[in-house]
């Protein structure tokens, strides 16, 4: 017992743990937003959008610019928060219509390679527009400080994220399970041809799904922007994390993405306490183990 308390002095520190758990949840939410978008797109179109991390990054950079342009203060921030994801959604729509449509019938490898190529293109464009320096987005006044939770400091901004989290999760659930569109989407993940045979415009649905998925990634990026350094290379970081999440949770599974995103968020949060480098290896170890035991993720479906 003593060995443990020596190695991990924080382990008996209840309040600290509580705060770490909460910040882990916040990080998990950002991941969830990106992952569920990627998972959704895969579930319907069977394409893994490797550029999803890039969408997240573009949204963060858009936040930087929007917050600069819009008037100071909370209103400007909120407006930016709404607009940035829309910008990304438009980007996603353009990509889907001009490029992805042409390759739906192609080998999955070619599709992957194509979206991989998008990473490079988008990355360079971001570099050209915003330059190589790190950027940041300042939080609105009201959320800039920290509150005390059980005596531990906790950034107020994360409270926003935690407050939004259930709203988002429930909202998504409502969309997928209580609207006609959501029903079509769920049907498409199960049997696309059937849906086409029933007269649904599947190609339009694909576009809608891709746009929505991109938008979700954009929301994640916009929300996360004030908490991290907005820099080139964030696309790769997010992408890999999203991979871990969707692989563990299973591509195409909403609940899977949620559970594993929170799990990964917590692991990262605690991993920093233990030993930063370890958290990455730990993540990958978990991913590898999950894949060996359940090759389609915890809640995923076997590939056709």
């Amino acid at each position, binding site marked *: 017992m003593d060995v443990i308390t020596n190695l991990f002095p924080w382990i008996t520190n209840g309040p600290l743990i509580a705060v770490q758990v909460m910040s882990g949840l916040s990080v998990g939410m950002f991941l969830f937003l990106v992952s569920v978008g990627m998972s959704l797109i895969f579930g319907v179109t069977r394409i*893994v959008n490797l550029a999803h991390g890039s969408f997240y990054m573009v949204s963060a950079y858009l936040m930087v610019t929007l917050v600069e342009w819009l008037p100071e203060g909370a209103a400007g921030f909120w407006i930016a928060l709404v607009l940035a994801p829309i910008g990304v959604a438009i980007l996603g729509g353009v990509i889907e219509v001009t490029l992805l449509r042409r390759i739906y019938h192609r080998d999955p490898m070619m599709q*992957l390679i*194509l979206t991989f190529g998008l990473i*490079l293109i988008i990355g360079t464009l971001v570099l050209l527009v915003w330059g190589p320096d790190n950027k940041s987005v300042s939080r609105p006044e009201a959320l800039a400080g920290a509150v005390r939770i059980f005596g531990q400091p906790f950034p107020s901004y994360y409270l926003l994220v935690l407050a939004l989290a259930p709203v988002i999760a429930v909202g998504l659930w409502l969309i997928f399970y209580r609207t006609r569109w959501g029903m079509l989407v769920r049907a498409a993940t199960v049997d696309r041809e059937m849906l086409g045979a029933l007269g649904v415009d599947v190609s339009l649905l694909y576009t809608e799904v891709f746009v929505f998925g991109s938008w979700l990634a954009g929301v994640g990026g916009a929300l996360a922007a004030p908490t991290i350094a907005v820099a080139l290379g964030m696309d790769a970081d997010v992408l890999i994390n999203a991979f871990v999440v969707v692989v563990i949770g299973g591509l195409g599974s909403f609940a899977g993405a949620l559970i594993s995103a929170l799990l990964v968020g917590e692991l990262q949060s605690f991993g920093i306490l233990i030993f930063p480098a370890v958290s990455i290896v730990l993540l990958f170890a978990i991913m590898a183990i999950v894949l060996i035991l359940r090759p389609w993720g915890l809640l995923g479906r076997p590939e056709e």
Partner: protein
Amino acid sequence: MTVETPAASIAIPRPLGAQRAALAWIVGLAVALALPFVVSTFFIVLLIEIAVIALFATAFNLLMGYGGMVSFGHAAYFALGAYAAALLAKKAGWPMLAALGAAPIVAAIGALVFGYFIVRLTHTYFAMLSLAFGQIVYTIIFKWTSLTGGDNGLLNVWPPEFLRSQTAYYYFTLVIVGLCFLALYAIVTSPFGYALKAIRENPRRARFIGVNVRRHQLYAFVLSGFFSGVAGGIFAFHNGSVFPDFAFFAKSFEPLVVVLLGGVQSFYGPVAGALGFKVLEWLISKWAPIYWPLFLGAIVIAVIIVLPQGFVGLLERRTWRTRPSIAK
């Protein structure tokens, strides 16, 4: 994990007749040997780099074109080879040739470890996991500053005196790369290669002629990693330094582009692709280096959409027309 074929025809590369091939070899060899006398040092450097990436891409194509497995994190093995060579030479004081000999072994071990997990997966997860493992290598190199020098890389990794001149190193590279190509060609035309191609075409059928598909793919993965490591090692001493971004996922894109440009289905495709790739890189870098990744991405997208067989694929192949078959 099949790399696709156009529906209405099957294009397989038909090798040039034996005599013409021999002639092509002799001419090519003569040209390669004579070049340093005619071109400037700058071009010799370019040629060395073409050879390196041609080897890397051919090793990559062993998996992609012949095995039907597209690895998205192959830069990891190149980097493992480069770093192994650099570390052994600099920190352990090994002579260059010994370090170069160990490099592919280290890369192969990495391929064995990662490959063990990766080959159990199909298509998409294979791609994702290979990408993720590639990033693991990058992150480890980046963060293990005490060993690898982190972001600063390892500098002053030079070959011994007699190989210091670009011309000398060029010939050295030709020899090593040439030997590797011979080996890869042997592999591809060996029973191992036949079985690998069979797995690519139809894994289920391959199982039912008695092939242990996973094990075979793992061996192919290790072989591919091995030769990628050779390329990395050669490059380390050529470049004089190694950096973490040798393993970055964007670098993994390069063999992919080379192979796509040159044509997936042919053995020499990657060589032609390497030539085209490096020439393009040189041109774009002269004009506006910042655009290079964008250009790279755009080329690949264009090739995928417009020209599925790559350029060499166009020249070399003979197309067999099929009748539409009932069974796919």
